[in-house]
């Protein structure tokens, strides 16, 4: 296994105007740029470091998947980009301007569905509409979204009356309601059965093809990451890493245009590599190693 930590700034050749400003390089109107982001929490002794020295760029319209062991800070990263939390150090810029608090352009589907129990599913989805949406327009949009995620028959149900998978789909619909420019999904399909999960993955790709938003999707499923993403970002758990290590373990460019064949061989090789990075050892593919990391691409 080769250690292929992405050196900061190695994507200087990214398309788009390469502005020289060090903090807020322009990554397109709805790109996200994290520079040297640290996040630590107060702990019993000292501070518990969760993210360290994280440089990450989400280019406009790109789908990036984040994988990593449980507790490595994937949700923390997502909350930082959503503006729900602030980095202990470093900067986060959205569309070229530094992020202050939550942003109208961003929408989140949380790891737990977080529905208001006294509202119906439709009313919960309506919560995601942009402020100031008209009543009729809002109603129509909610109905459309519920149809998209296959919940039109459940619109009037209360959250406690629906299954976990239905709740997650409602959560996805709520995040889509405002047609966000940056869509942040935290294990959006984790509670779905295998078949529904595949359908929802395709749905996400369809929506993305129709309206190319910037998507960050946290997942623990390497296959899902390889099926959905342009790039897969792997984080490491700082607890288990040697002192001083950075959070970013590697960045992998996924070859091939979407929709991808889930059984493609090059993906199988990548999959084995990512799994190995996560500490899961699978039989190595017999083919020669592929040019997989972004370093190899540049």
């Amino acid at each position: 296994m080769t250690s292929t930590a992405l050196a900061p700034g190695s994507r200087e050749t990214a398309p788009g105007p390469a502005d020289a400003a060090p903090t807020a390089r322009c990554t397109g109107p709805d790109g996200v740029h994290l520079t040297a982001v640290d996040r630590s929490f107060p702990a019993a002794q000292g501070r518990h470091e969760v993210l360290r020295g994280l440089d990450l760029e989400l280019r406009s319209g790109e789908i990036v998947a984040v994988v990593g062991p449980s507790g490595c800070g994937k949700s923390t990263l997502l909350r930082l980009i959503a503006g729900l939390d602030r980095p202990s150090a470093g900067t986060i810029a959205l569309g070229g301007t530094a992020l202050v608090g939550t942003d109208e352009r961003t929408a989140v589907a949380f790891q737990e569905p977080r529905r208001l129990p006294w509202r119906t599913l439709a009313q919960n989805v309506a919560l995601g509409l942009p402020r100031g949406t008209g009543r009729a327009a809002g109603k129509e949009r909610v109905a459309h979204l519920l149809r998209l995620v296959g919940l039109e028959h459940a619109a009037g149900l209360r959250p406690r009356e629906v299954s976990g998978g239905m709740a997650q789909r409602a959560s996805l619909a709520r995040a889509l309601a405002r047609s966000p420019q940056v869509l942040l999904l935290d294990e959006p399909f984790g509670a779905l059965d295998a078949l529904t999960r595949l359908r929802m993955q395709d749905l996400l790709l369809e929506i993305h093809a129709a309206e190319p938003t910037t998507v960050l999707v946290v997942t623990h499923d390497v296959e899902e990451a390889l099926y959905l993403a342009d790039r897969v970002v792997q984080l490491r758990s700082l607890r288990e890493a040697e002192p001083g290590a950075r959070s970013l373990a590697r960045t992998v460019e996924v070859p091939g245009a979407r929709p991808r064949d889930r059984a493609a061989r090059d993906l199988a090789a990548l999959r084995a590599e990512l799994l190995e990075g996560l500490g899961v050892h699978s039989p190595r593919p017999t083919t020669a190693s592929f040019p997989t990391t972004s370093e190899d691409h540049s």
Partner: protein
Amino acid sequence: MSTATTSSPVGPAPSDAPVGGAASGAERTPLKDRAGARLLAGALLPLVILAAWQLVTSAGLVPAYRLPGPGAVLAAGADLAARGELWLHIAISVQRVLLGFAIGSVIGLAVAAIVGLSRAGDAQLSPTLAALRAVPSLAWVPLLILWLQIGEESKITLIAIGAFFPVFTTVAAALRHIDPHLVEAGRCFGLRGWSLFRTVQLPAVIPSVVSGLRLALAQAWLFLVAAELIASSMGLGFLLNDSQQNGRVDRILLTIVLLALLGSLTNALLGLAEKKLLRRWA
């Protein structure tokens, strides 16, 4: 780890049946029967007490000047009603309770919002409020009488103080313990200040508001009697005090029964509102 090797399935969206929800309609036992049975069970003990009371008094086990029979108490009620006094006492007491309860609850809700939602409000107000709550209710009476005279204001203020604390305590605690995940989700979807309160925080504490109101109502009746016993010329508390001085045990018993009935009635009304609110918000 799923090992999907098939190409992506395309087809109609998945259709799950709703979990629960629909089931409740099928297994409903006749509501009327249940309600009737409950009523009967609840009426049993009062009827037994009434019968025992009648037996004890008519057998002469206790002299009538100590414990008049149910009939005598009824007669005392009829006598007061005929003179037009009974309604006056009831009406003025109910008015005081409702006014004091309304004022105390509204202030209680407002202060609870300040203390429950803002850390600064909590730090600045909580110690003082805790100290005020520790003052026994009757300790306020002399001060209120001196400041507000023996008019309506002093009594309504005392009742409002009584209603304030249960509402304040329950609602402030509930606001402090709202699921932070829900508040964060609301914030993340652009809700701030009043809209966040209206959409997330208030609905989340509706059950606590209701139980706070019920406690406050009981407390309002308690403080009513305290206020009227000490300084008044009308009302049920006055009737108690007056009857004691005239040795009218029948009227004392009558007033106690009336207080029990009125308290239960107002509590039942609030219970109806509670049912409606909880169906909508819980």
